[in-house]
């Protein structure tokens, strides 16, 4: 890592006069993000202080009333709790699967090269398609593959209704979402594994370290920076998941899979409480910021050692 950073910094034979050009080159992107991220976010804070229900209608300034309403809303905190469950479930499943698959992909196997690319297919698949496939495979009506196979194997007698109860719907969603994301997790971990020099293992072997010891004292510590950034990004990406949940359960049954993104969507576009949704977004953002800061404090920033 360091060597690459250095070669990037040394080279330039004619440096100074390019300073201004750098700003010109990043300007379009910076301007774009300013207009489409920063300004809307500021606008949303303004919106959260109003009492607007539908966009474009007249509204009044009502101060922090929306914040009070959201913070004292049991449904908001229940959704936050489900988001925690969702993130933890996904993290555990994807890390476990990702690790196993990464280790497999790191072996000198002919199949491993091709597999590295093709396992990503579940991640490339559009959500709408993924949802159609899984909904149908899990269907309890005719043509539902998984139920049919389970019945044929005499493991069950009546079809399981995977989305029937809040608990099983949540578990099913976590499994489906992990199916989509574990290949990417595996590839990130694989990249970390490949960055570990073989000599370290050879040396440890010569010193008589067992496979478990090598894993604990070489693999895990070397992966620490990768796992830290993966953990943070994975957290932010999975807490953000909306479409899979919405398209499979719409947050049901009886709100059992309503995570915070679904809560915000419902408030804004189903219940027409736009200003409250804006307030909920701001609170959600602050909660995420707090979680991210806590995470960096506990795990250590991947950039600190530079």
């Amino acid at each position, binding site marked *: 890592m360091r060597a690459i950073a250095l070669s990037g910094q040394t080279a330039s034979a004619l440096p100074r006069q*390019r300073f201004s050009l750098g700003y010109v080159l990043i300007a379009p992107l910076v301007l774009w993000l300013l207009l489409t991220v920063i300004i809307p976010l500021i606008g949303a804070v303004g919106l959260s202080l109003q009492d607007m229900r539908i966009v*474009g209608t007249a509204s009044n300034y009502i101060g922090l009333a929306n914040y009070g309403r959201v913070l004292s809303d049991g449904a908001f905190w229940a959704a936050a709790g489900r988001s925690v469950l969702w993130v933890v479930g996904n993290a555990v499943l994807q890390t476990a699967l990702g690790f196993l698959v990464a280790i497999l992909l790191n072996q000198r196997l002919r199949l491993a090269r091709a597999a590295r*690319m093709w396992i990503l297919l579940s991640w490339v698949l559009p959500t709408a398609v993924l949802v159609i*496939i899984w909904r149908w495979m899990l269907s309890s009506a005719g043509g539902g593959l998984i139920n049919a196979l389970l019945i044929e194997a005499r493991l069950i007698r009546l079809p399981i209704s995977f989305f029937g109860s809040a608990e099983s719907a949540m578990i099913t969603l976590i499994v489906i979402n992990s199916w989509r994301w574990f290949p990417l997790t595996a590839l990130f971990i694989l990249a970390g594994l*490949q960055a570990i020099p073989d000599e370290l293992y050879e040396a440890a072997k010569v010193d008589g370290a067992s496979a478990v010891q090598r894993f604990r004292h070489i693999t895990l510590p070397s992966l620490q920076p990768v796992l830290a950034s993966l953990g943070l990004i994975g957290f932010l990406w999975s807490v953000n998941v909306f479409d899979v949940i919405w398209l499979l359960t719409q947050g049901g049954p009886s709100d059992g899979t309503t995570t915070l993104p679904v809560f915000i969507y419902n408030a*804004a576009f189903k219940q027409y409480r736009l200003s409250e949704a804006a307030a909920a*977004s701001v609170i959600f953002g602050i909660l995420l910021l707090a979680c991210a800061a806590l995470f960096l404090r506990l795990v250590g920033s991947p950039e600190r050692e530079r």
Partner: protein
Amino acid sequence: MRMSFWGKLLGTAALLAVLFVILFPIYWMAASSVKTPREVIARRVTLVPQSFTTQHYEKLLSASNFPTYTFNSAVISLSTMIISVSLAVLAGYGVYQTKFVGRRVFLRAMLVAYAFPTVLLLVPLYFVLSALGLIDTYFALIIVNVTLTAPFAVWLLQAFFRNVPQDVIDAALVDGAGQLFVLWRIVLPLIAPGIAAIGIFCFVTSWTEYLFASILINTDALRTLPPGLAGIIGQYQIDWGLLMAGAVAMTLPLVIVFALFGRSFVSGLTQGAVKV
């Protein structure tokens, strides 16, 4: 590390199992799309189609809005790709080639932007885009998709810029070539795999984006594939054969793009991951 024969066999078997878990649902979708309606919903499932029909595809093309959705998705995805790649290449070159003050801050900001949970932007962007009267236009989705993809594209591109030998650039500059000329004629060809990688990323992201597409577009004639296909679930009393055909048609372009350029995408992705 050398592996024994049995180790290899076991490893290959495990990998095949992983591939099966990933690929089987996709096979199942394709197989079901050519079964007759009767076989599709039969109680006894058939793993290999016993019948063959193209009727679902014909229905998809003639009796649904699928062609319109495809056109809309293509326009939006390609526009997003062009804008996003241009912005990312310019910015990436700026960061790599000129050591301007604050480039670290800029890169850090890109990292934050791509990890940023987009659902937090849902209400804000909807609010601003409606104030501008852009709801129900291609522009709304193109704008959003560029915002969703460009920061990550900049990151992905860094790994490829680092592989460009600095002497080549310096030699051209000493010869009096302008920076933009150097970027266009010398650097771009060298980072072609990187361009392919971010191009795929932008295309795939916009082709599959559901949340904003379902909120920012209300007219059926302007709808993109993801909400369009999801809408078919409710629209017809679920016609699984038709849905599977739609799903295959929507996935096919992605699989082709992926087969052609996936390798550079994966390498950019993993190189970026290590260096983050």
